[in-house]
């Protein structure tokens, strides 16, 4: 009898491509929603990204009843409570989150309050607390990296207690994720690079960590292929609509992959570095990825070698001896990072960030050991191991 076992779950309808936003009215109507509320941030609104969403709805006779555009980068329980109050006052019946990870997580948390009732979202923190379907919820990502549109988790800060509250439930997943290339066309180069590297890390860790499974592998491989093919094209030509769509789809696919097979040490170190040094998550992912792959190399040689096909294409893959493919995959990722550094100075080492002190490495190593994702890393990471990886990533 086989010893293999896995679970895979993604009920989110993905609506992707040209004129995808114009499908929102139909999707709302299909769920009998008539009074949607948009949750977003000031940057998204200032960039004019709400205009096509609003126009698409109004053209089909659906009025956006309320727009909350003040979601901060680190959303809080206070913000969630305030938005839920507006939702109730305006008698909204559905939510459209337009933005990056923070707007999407806020949308998920607001949906808990307006569906379950009450004003204290902290009551629903943890896993499996929510037992029934929430209000109709749609997500329009404006970055191509987090994959939050297909993950069943949200993190909201409780300002009073200074803690981050995790929420986890399949009911947090949106009814649909709308991936429209118009929403990422104006992303600045360094954010395009960092978020794409975030997605590449999601896919690579998903493919090499211990919860990998055949279905998540398929999504991860496809995501890596799209990023390898399109990232530099988009960096050179930001208005490349097809390339933008490739990156947005890759982010969603990588999100589906990692939410079903988890991530490993790159994320443990990244979460710790983000908390201690306040570096953006995507940048941390790009920075640590090759060093962690080198550390894990002997336990992930086979899957990492397979990724060469998607990172470099069939010619390079077939010309590389199988015993060297894993190293060649790491080289391909390093080459990509060098190309990004040339184009937008995306840091490749902790020293290059200019925001991390060498004296903070020990603190980062210790915090990384307490991160949940470390459980899924293929190698058992000790404090000494984490210190060694950080030392290599330093310069």
């Amino acid at each position, binding site marked *: 009898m086989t010893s293999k076992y896995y*679970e895979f779950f993604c009920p989110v309808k993905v609506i992707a491509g040209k004129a995808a936003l114009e499908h929102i009215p139909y999707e709302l109507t299909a769920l009998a929603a008539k009074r949607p509320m948009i949750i977003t941030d000031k940057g998204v609104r200032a960039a004019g990204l709400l205009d096509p969403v609003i126009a698409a709805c109004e053209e089909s006779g659906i009025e956006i009843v309320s727009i909350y555009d003040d979601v901060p980068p680190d959303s809080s329980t206070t913000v969630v409570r305030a938005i839920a109050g507006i939702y109730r006052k305006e008698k909204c019946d559905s939510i459209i989150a337009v933005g990056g990870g923070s707007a999407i997580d806020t949308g998920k948390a607001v949906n808990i309050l307006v569906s379950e009732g009450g004003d204290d979202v902290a009551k629903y923190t*943890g896993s499996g607390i929510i037992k029934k379907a929430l209000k109709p919820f749609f997500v329009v990502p404006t970055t191509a990296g987090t994959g939050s549109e297909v993950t069943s988790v949200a993190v909201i800060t409780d300002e009073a207690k200074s803690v981050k509250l995790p929420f986890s439930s399949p009911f947090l997943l949106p009814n649909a994720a709308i991936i429209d290339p118009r929403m990422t066309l104006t992303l600045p180069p360094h954010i395009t690079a960092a978020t794409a590297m975030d997605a590449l890390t999601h896919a690579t860790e998903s493919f090499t960590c*211990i*919860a990998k499974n055949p279905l998540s592998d398929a999504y991860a491989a496809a995501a890596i292929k799209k990023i390898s093919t399109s990232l530099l094209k988009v960096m050179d030509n930001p208005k490349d609509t097809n390339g933008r769509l490739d990156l947005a789809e890759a982010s969603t696919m990588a999100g589906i992959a990692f939410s079903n097979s988890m991530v490993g040490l790159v994320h443990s170190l990244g979460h710790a570095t983000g908390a201690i040094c306040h570096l953006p998550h995507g940048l941390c992912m790009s920075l640590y990825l090759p060093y962690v792959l080198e550390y894990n190399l002997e336990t992930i040689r086979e899957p990492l070698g397979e990724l060469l096909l998607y990172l470099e294409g069939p010619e390079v893959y077939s010309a590389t001896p199988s015993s060297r493919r894993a190293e060649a995959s790491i080289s391909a990722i390093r080459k990509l990072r060098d190309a990004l550094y040339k184009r937008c100075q995306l840091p490749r080492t902790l020293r290059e960030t200019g925001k991390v002190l060498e004296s903070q490495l020990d603190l980062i190593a210790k915090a990384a050991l*307490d991160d*949940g994702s*470390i*459980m899924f890393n*293929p190698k*058992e990471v000790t404090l000494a191991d984490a210190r060694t990886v950080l030392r290599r990533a330093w310069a």
Partner: protein
Amino acid sequence: MLAKRIQPMALHARRLYVELMFQVMGRALQAVSEVDADVQEEALVLPEGFLFEIMVMPSGPRLIVEYTGQGRFHYHGESAPRSVDVSIQFKHIAHAFLVLSFQEKTSQAFANDRMLVDGDISYAVRMTRILNRLETFILPKLIAKRAVKEYPESLRLPQKMISAARIYLKVATNFVETVKA
């Protein structure tokens, strides 16, 4: 016919095995915290009075230990003096059996969604490392390699033997004391 008769007995034996292993593990956790400096150091971060539980859903066997400070744990058996802080919950007794009979590593069981964590995940990660450390001491190397993600090469045989002997002695003493009480 015979298979039908044997099956309930096998299921009963499986439950008894899980119950026994929980009793051994709970006592061994208390014992290892009294003999191993690494475990004590890991535990120092936990808040005093922290209650940790491993159980089988929905209301199957369980073990509860309390962190009493200075790196030490106290085994409470199956009942907690108050609500627990972190609970690792096997979804089914079959999954607990897979792990406790060393057919599936603890880390792989997490990866396979055999169990859930209720509570602060960072404490659960720490407690898993402590459990791994315990298993490397009390199990023969060949079996320990099946139980933990990576057997620590730095653990030499003399240290393993001495620590294991001290842990087993403490576990046996605790069992005797429980019976007497």
